[in-house]
Every structure is written in C-alpha cells, then in structure tokens.
C-alpha cells in the first residue's frame, strides 16, 4: 500500500510513529505533508492567538526536539518503541523520510492547490491523518481508498474535541474509532471501533491520551491490510443533526475528568485486591 501522512508539523511524534509502523509492516510511505511550524505567517498568527506567554511555551515545547539529560527524548513514551532507531530516536519527519526514502513537503495549508498537486504526484492508496487542517473535498478525493483517522473516542457518541475527557465525564467507555474522514467533524464512515481496556490503569489524562494515540496507531495498522483486501466494511454514521459534538473542554471540567480517571483506577485496584 502506498501511504501518505498528513501532519500538524514536521516534528509530530505521532506522524513519525505512524509512518515508521506502517513501513515496518511492509507498506510503502511515499510522502508526508506537514504544516509549516516556522513559517513567518504561521508564527505571527500563533502569536496573535496565544499571546507571548503561551507562544513562548509553544516555541519551547514544539519547535525544538525534546532533550533529556543531554539525549533526545520522546514526549509520548508509548511511541518510543516505534521511534527508536539503534541508539537514537527519530526526532522529525525529515529523519524518518531520510531513513525510508520518501519526500516531506512543508505547507501552510494542506488544502491549498499546490498541496493537492503534490499529493496527487505521490498517488497514495491511503492517507493517514495525524493532524493539521480541516480537510476539504479536493484533498479527500486524492487517495484511492480514502483518508483514515484514529479518533480518540467512540463514534458516533463522542464526536469532536477533548474526546477522552468527555468520555470519562459522561461515563461512556473510552476508546478509539478508525474512520474515513469526510467533510464534517468526525462524521465519516466507521471502519472499526475499539474500547480501550487499559483506560482504568492510566495515571493521568496525559497518560491516557498518550496511550490512546499509540493504541490508535496499532489499530490503524490492523485495519489497513483488511482495507486493501476489501474484507472490511464501512458503516455510515447515523443522521448527525441532533447528535452532540463536543468542544474543547474547560480546565475546571478537565480536572473533574482527571478525578474520575483516578477514581476509576482506585475502584479497579480495590476490585483486584478485594
């Protein structure tokens, strides 16, 4: 399968891990389209949006590879097995691309005509979405099979942002959904849904999110061969006009979701000991 990855930046660990995992399984990464992190316009926009404090934090954490004790480290420890390369790790899509010999294109907008033209040149069977813009139809029409996303919630119940947190607060099982992206927000046809059995053992919301991302990559890797063989069927989502879409969660509620996570963990531990 010829695979392309869409990434929110060239330094996205998720995108790097996704490409590496697919390559390990024998698929052929043919390109990666990443949003520019150093583009002057993008930086200015982010500065305007976030103010100098948040911007400085962003620059410190996102624009430079993470260092720990003088060595490159990974932010999501559950991706380390995929990102490891001998004694080091892949720190950017450029490094992954150099190793697996594919092209990385940096753009300001993944839907822009020049981005679409580049994607068409790569002629992918599948595009994997690791982050970036809301995708428009011209881009969605490029791959032979479609654009795949591992959504961090069970669709159609948990659509939108902050999905793991909303799942916890609403007592909905935490999980992921592998689905095709369409023009709506998490409204595309569903290929597979997986509850995440380890949710109750997570130590924090960050820990849960990190594990879900790694879990999602593994499940995409399982789905792609079935997609190639045509042995997996897609399920259209129901009429979503009256279904909820969740939005970014306020920190006060997020703290309560974290409490719920800890409580779930305690009850699991108590059951195990009881």
């Amino acid at each position: 399968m010829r695979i392309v990855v869409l990434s929110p930046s060239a330094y996205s660990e998720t995108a790097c891990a996704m490409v590496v995992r697919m390559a390990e399984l024998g698929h052929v990464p043919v390109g990666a389209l990443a949003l520019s992190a150093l583009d002057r316009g993008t930086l200015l926009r982010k500065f305007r949006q976030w103010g100098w404090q948040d911007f400085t934090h962003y620059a410190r954490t996102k624009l430079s590879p993470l260092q720990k004790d003088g060595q490159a480290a990974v932010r999501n420890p559950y991706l380390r097995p995929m990102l490891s390369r001998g004694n080091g790790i892949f720190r950017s899509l450029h490094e992954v691309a150099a190793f697996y010999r594919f092209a990385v294109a940096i753009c300001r907008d993944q839907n822009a005509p020049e981005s679409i033209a580049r994607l068409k040149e790569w002629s992918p069977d599948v595009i994997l979405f690791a982050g970036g813009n809301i995708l428009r139809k011209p881009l969605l029409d490029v791959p032979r099979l479609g654009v795949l996303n591992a959504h961090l919630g069970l669709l159609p119940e948990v659509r939108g942002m902050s999905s793991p947190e909303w799942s916890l607060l609403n007592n909905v099982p935490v999980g992921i959904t592998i689905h095709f992206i369409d023009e709506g927000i998490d409204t595309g046809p569903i290929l597979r849904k997986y509850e995440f059995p380890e949710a109750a053992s997570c130590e924090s919301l960050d820990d849960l999110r990190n594990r879900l991302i790694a879990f999602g990559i593994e499940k995409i890797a399982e789905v792609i061969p079935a997609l190639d063989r045509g042995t997996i069927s897609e399920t259209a989502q129901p009429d979503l006009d009256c279904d909820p879409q969740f939005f970014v969660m306020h920190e006060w509620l997020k703290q309560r979701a974290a409490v719920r996570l800890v409580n779930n963990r305690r009850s699991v531990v108590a059951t195990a000991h009881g």
Partner: protein
Amino acid sequence: MTNAVADPKDRSKDNTAPTVVAKALIEATGLLRAPQRLGPLIQKLVSDKVRVTFEQRHLYSYVTTKRPSAEVLNLLLRWILDAQRPDGGIAAYYSLLTGYSESYPEVTGYIVPTLYDFARATEDRKALAAAEKATNWLLSLQMPTGAFPRGLHGREAQPSVFNTGQILHGLVRAYAETNHPGVLSAAVAAGDWLVDMQQPDGSWSGSGAYQNAAHTYYSMVAWALAELSERAGDRLDSSRFALAAEKNLDWVLTHFRPSGWVDGINLQGHPNYLHFVAYALQGALECGVLLRRNYAVEAVAKSSWVLLRKFETNKYLPGAYERDFKSPLRFTCLTGNAQMACVWLRLFEITDDLCYFNAALKMNEMLKQLIPSRGRPGIVGGVSGSFPVWGQYQPLRYISWGCKFFADALILEQRLKQSFDATAVGILPCAS
C-alpha cells in the same frame, strides 16, 4: 441630560424624539461639560482597538481561568452599588461621554434578585441594604393601576407592560426575602394589571407595549407572572397569574422556527440584538420550568444549542441577528452573552448535559477578561454594552443590566460548581 443613542431599552423614544445623530451630538457635548472624561474614553477606545486588532479567537480560547470568578463578581457588585442613586434607584448606565444616567425603574426591579443572591452567597450587608433601598424606591413609583412607568425616572408617566413585568421579578423576590405584606400587595397589583392588559392571544400589545407591538421577548413578563403565582400561591388564589403566564408562553412558542430562531422580537428601527433573543429564550425557559412545561424547555434547548455551536466554533457570538441566526456583524453584545451563559447554565442544571456547562464556563471566562479592574466608579467592574465599546449596542456605555446578568451568571456558575463537586463527580449522562 439626554438619553442618547438609539436604544430600545429607552422607552422615552417616540416619533417626536430627535434623530439618532442629533442625540449622539447632544450626548457628545457631555465631554464639554466634563472634559476629565476624555482620558478614560480614549483609554477604552485604544484598549479595545488593540484587542480587536491583535487578538484572534482560537480553539483554546477561554478554556483556562485567568481571573477568579469571585474577584470579578465583587467588581460587578461594586459597579452596581456605585450606580445606586440617592433615591435608591439604579442608574441605567455610565456613559463615557455623559457619566451616570438617572435611575432606571425597570433595571432597578430586576437587579433586586441579583443583590439578594449576592448577599446570600457572600453575606454582604451592603448588597442587602441596597436591595431594600431599591425595593422601597420602586414601591414609591407604582401607579394607582398597579403598573410601573416606562423610561428613565422622571421622564415619563406612561405605564409599561415590560417594565412592570421586570419590576415584578424584584418585588416577588423582595417579598420572598422579607415577607413584607406591602410588597406582596404591590406585586399582586402589578400582576393584576398585567393580566388585564393581556390580549386574547396571550401577547401584550397596544398602549402598554413598546412601539405598541407584540414582542416575544415579553416572555420575561410571563416568567414574572409565573413566579408571582408560585410565590404568592399560599397566600391567595394566584391561578390567574399562572394562566396568563401559560397563555403568553404558548404564544411565544408559536414563534420558534425549525432552525431554532425566535421570530417576533419585532423592534422597529433596531436589529435583533442578542440581548432580546436571549430575553425570549430566558423567559420561555424559566416560565416553562415553573409551569412544568417540558416542551418549552425543549424548544429553548434547541435554540440555545444553535447559539452554543456558534460560540464554540467562532469563539464569539455576534451582537445582532437576521432571521435564522444569520449575522454579518462583528461586534458582540456582552449583556446577551452573559444572558446566554445563564441560559446554558440553567439548561445544564435541568438536563445534566455538560456541554452547556462547558460553554457557559468559557463564556464567563471571555466576559471576565473584559471587566475593568481599575478606573473611576462607573468604569471599574463595568460591563460595556458592546465589545468593542463602539459596537452598535449601547455604544460607549457601561450598562447596569450587563452587570446584573453577568453577576447572575457568575453566581449561578459558583452554585453549580459546588453542587457538581458535592455529588463527587457523579454519573452524568450527556443529554444533548
């Protein structure tokens, strides 16, 4: 003193009134009388210009608490207490051009419950005293018919349905707090006048209504009647008030469109400001709750969800709308925003749907960032009519009803947070 720029809250406006431009010019002469206001005016204009130029709303706007709610609530109440005139009434607004307006009976009426809520939440004696003083002033204004007058104090002697309904909110609450029979008598007289003035179809139109027309935002009047019925029910036969409330509620609900839009705001010469849309929703919701009419709650929830999605997606709510919530406008009506926070918080309380709570928390964060923490009385703790301050709704003014609704939203937020934590992050299904 003039009451200036086109303002549907200003019931003194009629066909003989000067044009909007003339009014604005007259108001601008306020600066000649008090040039010391020039500094704060320029400061506010510059700060809003900087904010709209350099700040861009984004996905993560308003998800973190940058100012404690209690601090901002104290500022809002300070603004209201500063705005209380020696007669006991609350000024309608503080204009950056002309200073405080005269006392405004309508707003004074519905600020009374806010003062009691604040006093209860913080044990603040000043708020309690201010509520009692305001109530006494209102009682002195009641007409022999039971009605209350329109407009700013001393301007008009014409009775007004909407103002009487809004003042009734204050009287009902004052009676609940003090058990004073004189307050109950005044409330019942006001209620009886409203029942007499109601049209057979359940609306209020004609001489007591603004521009003589029927308006769906008069659901606020229906809510007041439903409250009166509920509170006074153990002392007298109050079924007529509940019936009138229900009749109006049913009339209002016939104006809810499939898109969620509410027709019949019906203000000639003014756009459909969010303030009035939110009034229609708030009145229908609270009336529906008191009368146990679930269909009203469902209709309001549907409309409120449309506005919630707009706010979550665009990070602001336009200040005025055309039909079906279309809006080309870029200013925002802060009072309407605060009212929507109240509606979303109440919908969370009623339905347990956390999406409403989440949106209200973010709306309150947005509003908190716009409350001045420094400045002279009239500015510090004030809620401007529009953001930016030169926007179409109540330009260049800090308005008392903005402070009232935002204080209501913060008090409600605090109460719901406490009850949420008291249930130990209980089981809450998503009901949207």
